[in-house]
């Protein structure tokens, strides 16, 4: 190997810079130094030319490597296959985990909601079943009403002084319906008493029923079909029932009319009935079903008309 014995230290210094010069990495001042030296030094110029020739040959060889078109197409085909769908692509795992979390959370939420809805429906159905059972057993199956409406005086007498005032409310708020019968009754096997108005209209029998709450409570929220009057509805035993609450009573409108008509009737009827019941419970003349003599089915002094209203022989719902 030849060793250069430069007389010129400048040549040695410049050649140390030649690699960086070739890569255009020198500072402007150093580049100027190199260029000035190259102008006057043939040996260093030849050295730079030799290095440049090698570099150019290398570039030429690199460019001569033609990239295969089929490789490009193959890559693009594979990329298209990996094109993300909504849940695909590079973040597939992230999506999968996120989806799993969403499913678990929504699933849990939906399950909880479903359970709440089912529980709410059961409560509404069980409470409204009280009214439906009396309608079915007393009015429909028991047919405890005359074909020609009883006179109002008789109905007021059967209702007793505590509930007689409600007759007018029912008559006023049920246009198109005729009150055939009004009494206090119960269904067999249950001590519960009902204030029962049996009416006829729209070609069918419709009952307006009131009973004292015994701990029953209708659920709040979405089960209300009419928030302004606090109405609930249910379809039970082929009947449509709309129900409402007062402080101490539950009220029902039950018929085989459509749910919409049933709710509409109840919407008109519920507010005045509720007001009357609440006013009654707050007054000295507190409404008390047990205080009505003929409500005590089977006890001494019960009139034949009232005894008939106890709806015997009909099974409890």
């Amino acid at each position, binding site marked *: 190997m030849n*060793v250069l014995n430069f007389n010129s230290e400048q040549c040695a210094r410049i050649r140390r810079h030649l690699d960086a010069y070739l890569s255009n990495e020198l500072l402007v001042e150093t580049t100027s130094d190199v260029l000035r030296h190259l102008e006057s030094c043939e040996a260093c110029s030849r050295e730079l030319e030799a290095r440049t020739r090698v570099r150019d040959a290398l570039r030429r060889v690199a460019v001569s490597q033609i990239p295969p078109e089929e490789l490009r197409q193959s890559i693009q085909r594979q990329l298209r296959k990996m094109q993300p769908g909504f849940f695909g692509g590079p973040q597939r795992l992230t999506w999968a985990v996120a989806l799993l979390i969403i499913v678990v959370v929504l699933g849990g939420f939906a399950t909880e909601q479903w359970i709440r809805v089912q529980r709410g429906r059961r409560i509404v159905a069980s409470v409204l079943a009280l009214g439906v059972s009396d309608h079915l057993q007393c009015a429909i199956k028991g047919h405890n009403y005359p074909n020609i409406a009883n006179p109002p005086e008789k109905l007021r007498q059967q209702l007793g002084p505590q509930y007689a005032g409600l007759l007018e409310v029912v008559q006023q708020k049920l246009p198109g319906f005729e009150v055939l019968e009004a009494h206090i009754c119960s269904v067999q096997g249950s001590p519960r008493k009902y204030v029962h108005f049996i009416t006829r209209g729209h070609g069918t029998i419709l009952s307006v029923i009131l009973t004292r709450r015994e701990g029953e409570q209708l659920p709040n929220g979405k089960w209300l079909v009419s928030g302004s009057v606090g109405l609930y509805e249910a379809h039970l035993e082929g009947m449509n029932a709309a129900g409402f609450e007062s402080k101490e009573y539950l009220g029902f409108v039950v018929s085989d009319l459509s749910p919409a008509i049933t709710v509409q009737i109840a919407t008109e009827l519920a507010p005045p009935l509720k007001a009357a019941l609440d006013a009654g419970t707050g007054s000295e003349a507190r409404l008390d079903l047990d205080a009505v003599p003929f409500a005590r089915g089977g006890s001494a002094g019960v009139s034949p008309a009232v005894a008939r209203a106890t709806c015997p022989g009909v099974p409890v719902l």
Partner: protein
Amino acid sequence: MFFHPKLRVEDFEAAAMPHFPDLYRTARLLAQDRAEAEDLVQEVYLEAWKSFHRFQAGTNCRAWLFKILFHRLHHFRRRWAKAAKVEAFENPEDQDHLIAETPVPQEIRDEDVLQALGKVPIEFREVVLLADVQEFSYKEIAETMKLPLGTVMSRLSRGRKLLRQELAGVAQAFGITPAKDPPRAGESA
């Protein structure tokens, strides 16, 4: 990040496919054969697409792709196993500038370059290709190869010399005479 609104393969292709020729050429000159080069480039693109959501639009896509290329290449070659060999070539107190430069043939044939390049250890070949063919800056090479700047400079210098020596050897073997430089004053044989 759960969702990247711009994560479309069309966007990726628009950013990455223009660099396909450069990546292939570099891979071809570093890989042992054409099949390995093609596998390498294909893997680079699939890997890049998988991590495209981490790529920041507007940054240097070419450098990013080369970084993946070298990551895959080194993974293939288990570079660490050759570390001792590299050290033997790398001398921080490089005094090569005092050694006479190997004469370069006047006519350099492509096949000679390929043959000579194949004899240059890959650690030096990589840096020479990035600097002299792809025209990466020292800083870009350092980032791409995850090397200190000084190592990049020394490997480039050494790599160029090795290539030149191998080229001269190949040329001589085929009877090609080096370019004749006129004798210089003060030069001793």
